[in-house]
């Protein structure tokens, strides 16, 4: 239990490699993109740091790919400005932005060999590091683990190999910025997991600023330095994977990133019987559908803002399935087992309580009615 507590020292590691003080590589200021009536991207402000692995994640239609295309220069924003290292790039065509792009379908040129594909960008610029073009192509194919495949036909490669050729091609001219648009989504699950680690290690080896677009939240959490969770054209939360997972900024983020149990209720009183004054880290009592639950108190600034709540306030909080303990009788509810999914290492059990669905994780299959309870400090109050 104690090990689950947010540890203040961990927060430092959130701002890992690029460091919060790293210079800004790409900045979007008030960027919008509208097509006729509909807005694909609405008033987006983002600051992507140099050397950072930055991921745009969200359900389809949330504007993540449009944001990437705006950065690449394939689309022009309807409003706002995009800056690369302080330089406004509006009106700069894609070929002058010094970016590498990998598409979902890889877009390898079918009439060129693997080597010609990788070397294509070198027709317009000299290879970085003063090496010959041929050497650069060889180096890049080595980097993506496809040595000696320069003479092959892209059509004869597997999906994973094509993806890596596309990576090599995008990196060959030595771009300042790597843009990846769902580069894994056409691959099978196991390959995806292996390749995303490879992409991450290449990114770290080169230290290249990378913007990654995916709809897969697990993928986003596993590789990124920071994540922007997008919804309806706007980022709902921009933070490290840990923060996004532990302290979702909105109900949408809470439910989109991983399994979560979200409760809505009304504050009854401070846990010690007094009004919880602003800034206090004391837990509060919340009435959820007639049941009184104790929520918060995980330490100042660490988890949620239960401190600023007074009786009568509406409050939303969430609990990860692993924090909802079966058999714990205090601070909990009795719920009926609906069904269970055996996942191997654990079992995900869906419960029904007061017409709400709850999700818990257990070792053993459950049935009938069970009691589930939680430690108030594990609950995260969403500050919507």
């Amino acid at each position, binding site marked *: 239990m104690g090990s689950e507590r947010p540890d203040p020292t961990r927060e430092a590691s959130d701002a890992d490699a690029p460091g919060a003080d790293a210079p800004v590589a790409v900045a979007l200021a008030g960027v919008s993109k509208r097509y006729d009536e509909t807005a694909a991207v609405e008033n987006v402000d983002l600051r992507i740091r140099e050397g950072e692995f930055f991921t745009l994640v969200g359900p389809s239609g949330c504007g993540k790919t449009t944001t990437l295309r705006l950065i*690449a220069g394939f689309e022009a924003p309807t409003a706002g400005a995009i800056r690369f290292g*302080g330089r406004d790039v509006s009106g700069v*065509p894609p070929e002058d932005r010094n970016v590498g792009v990998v598409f*979902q379908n890889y877009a390898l040129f079918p009439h060129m060999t693997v080597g010609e594909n990788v070397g*294509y960008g070198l027709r317009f610029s000299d290879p*970085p590091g003063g090496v010959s073009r041929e050497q650069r192509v060889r180096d890049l194919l080595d980097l993506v683990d496809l040595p000696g495949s320069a003479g092959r036909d892209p059509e004869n490669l597997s999906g994973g190999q094509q993806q890596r050729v*596309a990576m090599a091609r995008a990196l060959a001219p030595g771009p300042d910025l790597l843009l990846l648009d769902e580069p894994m989504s056409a691959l099978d699950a196991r390959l995806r997991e292996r390749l995303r680690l490879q992409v991450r290690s290449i990114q770290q080896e080169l230290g290249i600023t990378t913007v990654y677009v995916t709809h897969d939240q697990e993928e986003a959490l596993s590789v990124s330095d920071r994540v922007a969770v997008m919804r309806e054209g706007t980022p709902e939360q921009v933070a490290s994977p840990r923060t996004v997972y532990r302290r979702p900024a909105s109900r949408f983020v809470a439910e989109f990133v991983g399994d979560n149990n979200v409760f809505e209720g009304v504050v009854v009183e401070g846990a010690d019987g007094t009004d919880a004054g602003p800034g206090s880290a004391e837990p509060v009592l919340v009435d959820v559908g007639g049941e009184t639950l104790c929520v918060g108190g995980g330490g100042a600034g660490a988890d949620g803002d239960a401190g600023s709540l007074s009786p009568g306030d509406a409050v939303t909080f969430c609990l990860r399935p692993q924090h909802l303990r079966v058999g714990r009788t205090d601070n909990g509810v009795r719920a009926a087992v609906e069904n269970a999914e055996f996942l191997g290492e654990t079992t995900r059990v869906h419960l029904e309580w007061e017409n709400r669905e709850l999700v818990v994780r257990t070792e053993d299959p459950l049935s009938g009615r069970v009691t589930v309870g939680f430690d108030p400090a594990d609950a995260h109050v969403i500050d919507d």
Partner: protein
Amino acid sequence: MSDGSRGPVGEESRSGEHSDGGRVAAGWHRLRDRLERRALATASAATVAVLLVVFYYPVGTVLVESVVVNGAVTLAVFAEVVRDPFYTGEFARLFAGEGPLAVARAFLGPERRLGIVGFTAYQAALSTLVSVALGVPGAYLLARFEFPGRRTLRSLTIVPFVLPSIMVAVGFVAAFGRTGTLNTVLAAVGLGPVELMFTLEAILIAHAFYNAPLVARVTTAAWESVDASAVETARSLGAGPFQAFRHVVAPQVYPAVLLGAALTFVFTFGTFPIVLALGGFELATVEVFVYRLARDLNYAEAAALAVLELLISLSVLAAYLRYEASHTVTSRGVRPLPRRPLRLPELTARELLPRLGLGVYALVAALVFLVPIASMLFASVTGGDGALTLDHYRFLLERQRTGAAFQVRPWPAVRNSLVFAAASALVALPMGVVVAVVTTRRYRGRALVGAVAMAPFAVSGILVGLGLLRGLVFGVEIAGWRIAVAGSAAIVAAHAVAGYPFVVRTVAPGLESLDRSLVESARALGASRARVLRDVELPLVWPGVVAGAAFAVAISMGEFTATVVLATGADAYTMPVAIERFIGRRLGPATAMGVVLLVVTGLSFVVIERLGGEYDGI
């Protein structure tokens, strides 16, 4: 990222500075870069300029004559034309102020008058029906059956479309004329002569000869792109073979049939040489009257009539484009429907009936497509007495050797045709590619740009020729400078303008279906828009480019209408013009010249096709 900061992968960013020699190279790079960046814009401007100079301006000058009389703008000439029952039949009364009901009643009555415009539309509609009736079974055969020579037959469907109309007319006279093949055969079995010449039927068959293969080509391509799994899904859901056809296949094939029909209507509505040769003035169409009026120097009325013709053609095309925008299924079948062997696998009614139908179709198709060409070949080696002879070819050789300067000689005609064809293809290809690129990008007003660029499809060839003759050949005075384009250059320009819409039609669909991310990947790698076109797009749509070139050459070699107007007096006559001059005297030399034209066109096609692969468009 910012200026001066280094790229993470290497020491130098792309536009790295080098030594002195490098600086020269860098300067050259920059210059080339700048040229490349502007290549597309420059090519677009050049295309617009060519279109303005050889199409919109000349056509405009003629059109102006129909609305400007004695320096004042007036619609009087135009109004006169539409109110003249001679042109617009019963509709004239509508323009004269009568109620639509009265006009409709008169139209349904026994004494209805169609007028020239009405007759033109009538024969175009009938021609379209016949062409669709002949074309769709051909598509069925080509798309659904496997047999030896299928691919060759498919390639051959382009041949009638590119044959010069004047040659087709000669072939038809040789086949269906009073002493033609058909009557010879009929006489041999004791049947009386059939008078087909100067009848509507002859015109309809000639139009079908031209346009049915066009319908077949577009329909075959659509049929082949139907995904087999869609049909299989329908079948698994309980649809019978016929229902699956009706619900899944037919909706994907209709748009193609309609495209073929719309183009057929427009082509046959503006028909000129076929009607002139096979219909005479009794069955004259609008275009023939435009020609006649222009010849009588009545330019105002000719232009007004041509405008009316253009409006009708454009509204048909617009109606089709409107339909296409809402109905075309763009997804291409991943797995096409399997072809059935043409040879009967078992003797059942289900297997036998379609093959019997195709057998009947083959006979009709042979009569329409093969007999005219065979008859022309035969007539070119047959003397007046019916015996085989090489006299007509000897006549051509003789004329070549001893012909006077004012006489039409064969070799200059062949040489001019080849030179004009090569030159106009060189002009039409970049024009067509540029228009294809510009119209496949998505932006507001794209449809308008497309329509303006494709207008040469629909505008009267006589009008263009006339405009060119009066506007450019005689010279234009602009700010004190007299600009005149010589006969040959004007012919090349006219041919290029006539041919480039075909390049657009063959290149644009390929560009449209190319994965957008291919272009974007290349752009992100540093290629300018023009470089992407050269390095990625054109290589991938190369068969379409070659097909476009073939069309441009064929259109140029067969073009008659504008050429005959522009080649007056000069020695810039081409093979079709030579045929027309010969036909005035005797059929024999004309057929021999027609065979020469057939051979030269065929050889050019073989050479061009060697450069490209199989092509599936129009």
